């Protein structure tokens, strides 16, 4: 049982606040992905959970035990470092075995675990090499193997697959998910690759400038962004946003189209729709086609709507050409609204 609870954790570096009062609970055996742009505080949060950084305020609990005053080795965790930290003076074998040797496991057990995890990460032929004789991607897999070999209750991974080629990454991703689920490990996994986040996570915590903006299942994060940032960060291409002006109470005008929406005393709010959630037809938003990109299964069309860019994903058999005037009708149940001041969903 290793539930992780992060309670009101803040971190300041001098005058700079890297984390503002983070609250996050990760259930036992859950796979939690921290997703966010570079510099938003993902590594800092992970290092606080690991005990490599002391929080300026707040508490960290692992498995029902308050750990923020404990050194890392007493927290029952293993970690994959963003910069790998593979020991240069040890062979790959001894690197993977490092934690096991510290636990004083019998040699046979050590060998068994090292060989098993090395095989899993496809590095079994590198066991005799030193870190200096490995490529970045190989080193990264050694770092992952070293953490997996510990069979810990909690594993913290900081962009563990960032340096692998697309194919290998896909394969490793599947392997990791399988292994971690089978071993009932609680995982915090940092990435800024949203596809990776979507495919691995039980829940995604989206971080932005030291805040957790939303922590929810991948589908929820995608479908119902809690804030404008989530919608604009997740999805490729991201959500479209258009300012809407009040037509009547609970009714808003968006680029010439009047739509039912939330009741609000504001005069303007933001209308948002995902590119794949519009249909072409005889009514809808007035759009002028600027760019047409056939992507195979569908076609990405970039248009002008009310002087702003608007991306739509259309059927690949749609015949559109640059300069065409289209009417784009948003699917009513897919429309989201945001407060332009707080940027939160309405």
């Amino acid at each position: 049982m290793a539930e992780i609870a992060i309670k009101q954790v803040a971190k300041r570096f001098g005058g700079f606040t890297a984390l503002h009062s983070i609250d996050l609970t990760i259930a036992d055996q859950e796979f939690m992905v921290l997703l966010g742009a570079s510099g938003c505080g993902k590594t800092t949060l992970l290092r606080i959970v690991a005990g490599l950084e002391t929080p300026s305020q707040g508490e960290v609990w692992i498995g029902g035990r308050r750990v923020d005053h404990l050194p890392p080795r007493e927290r029952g965790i293993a970690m994959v470092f963003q910069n790998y930290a593979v020991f240069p003076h040890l062979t790959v074998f001894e690197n993977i075995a490092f934690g096991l040797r510290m636990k004083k496991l019998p040699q046979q057990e050590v060998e068994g675990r090292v060989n098993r995890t090395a095989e899993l990460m496809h590095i079994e032929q590198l066991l005799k090499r030193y870190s200096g004789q490995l490529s970045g991607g190989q080193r990264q897999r050694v770092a992952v193997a070293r953490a997996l070999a510990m069979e810990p209750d909690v594993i913290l991974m900081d962009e563990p697959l960032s340096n692998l080629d697309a194919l290998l990454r896909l394969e490793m991703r599947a392997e990791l998910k399988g292994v971690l689920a089978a071993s009932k490990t609680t995982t915090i996994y940092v990435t800024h690759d949203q596809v990776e986040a979507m495919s691995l996570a039980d829940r995604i915590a989206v971080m932005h400038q030291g805040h957790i903006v939303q922590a929810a299942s991948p589908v929820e994060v995608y479908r119902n962004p809690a804030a404008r940032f989530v919608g604009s960060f997740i999805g490729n291409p991201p959500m479209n946003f258009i300012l809407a002006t009040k037509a009547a109470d609970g009714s808003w005008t968006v680029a010439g189209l009047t739509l039912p929406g939330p009741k609000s005393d504001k005069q303007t709010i933001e209308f948002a729709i995902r590119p794949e959630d519009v249909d072409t037809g005889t009514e809808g938003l007035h759009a002028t086609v600027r760019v047409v990109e056939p992507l195979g299964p569908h076609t990405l069309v970039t248009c002008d709507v009310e002087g702003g860019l608007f991306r739509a994903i259309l059927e690949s058999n749609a015949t559109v050409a640059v300069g065409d005037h289209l009417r784009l009708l948003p699917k009513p149940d897919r429309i989201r609204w945001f407060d332009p001041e707080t940027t939160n969903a309405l």
Partner: protein
Amino acid sequence: MHGKALPYLLLTPATLFLCVFFLYPFALVAFEAFTRDGGFTLDNFRTMTSSWKFPVTVRNTLLLSAVVVPIQLVMALLMATMVSRLAAGRSAALYIFAIPLGISDLAAGLIWLAIFDQSGFLNTLLSNLGVIDRPVMFLGYQSKLTIFIAVALAEIWRATAIMMVILVAGMGLIPREYYEAAEVFGASPWKRFIKITLPLLRPSLQTAIILRVILAFEVFAVVAALGGTNLPVLMGETYNWQFTLQDRNVAAAMALFILAISIGFTLFFLRVLRVPKEARI
């Protein structure tokens, strides 16, 4: 051709300087060691080894090195670890630890003589405390052991800092991330020292030990100040041959002998503390 020749060109002045002021005198010394009255001979070495003092000086010098260097190594490692851990005031601590480095070895010997002398600091202190009622001859010719201890203390006091400075620099080169990884994977502070610091510090340890061992073989002024002739060492004996016995040929042989054991130990430590190229940071 320009690019390849340039480094050599730039090294030429230093090389010339070395040749004129080091290699040439060295060749002269070597020549003197192997000649007597104009002819090649090994007599100088025979004279050197057949002196009754020779085995004593070799023994004293090696014993002194064997006692002083390990103690210094441990102390330097301790001090370097402490200095490296300081969050603030690191350079201040380094400077304070390094003060004895600024004192010449003769001066260091004299300072410790002032402590151990019959009318020295230690005797005054002990008699004021009432432990003794009349001054003790710590450095008399019967108390070889006390002389040895006094010399060892003075040497340790004087030259530990040089090792520490090298080790502090070496520790600064070890990236923090390795300590963090070791910590996460269960290594206690002691294990981190054994498993991370020591292996990754090997190049600096090598430099520090070699430098210190060579200096230990050349110990002279401290011994002269504290022990006079009661603790003969290799360097003192060389001096003796040159100036007291006025035999520059045997003195040259002696110098070559010291050089030979220095080279021997250097090669030994180069080999033992070698870091394979692929295992470097």
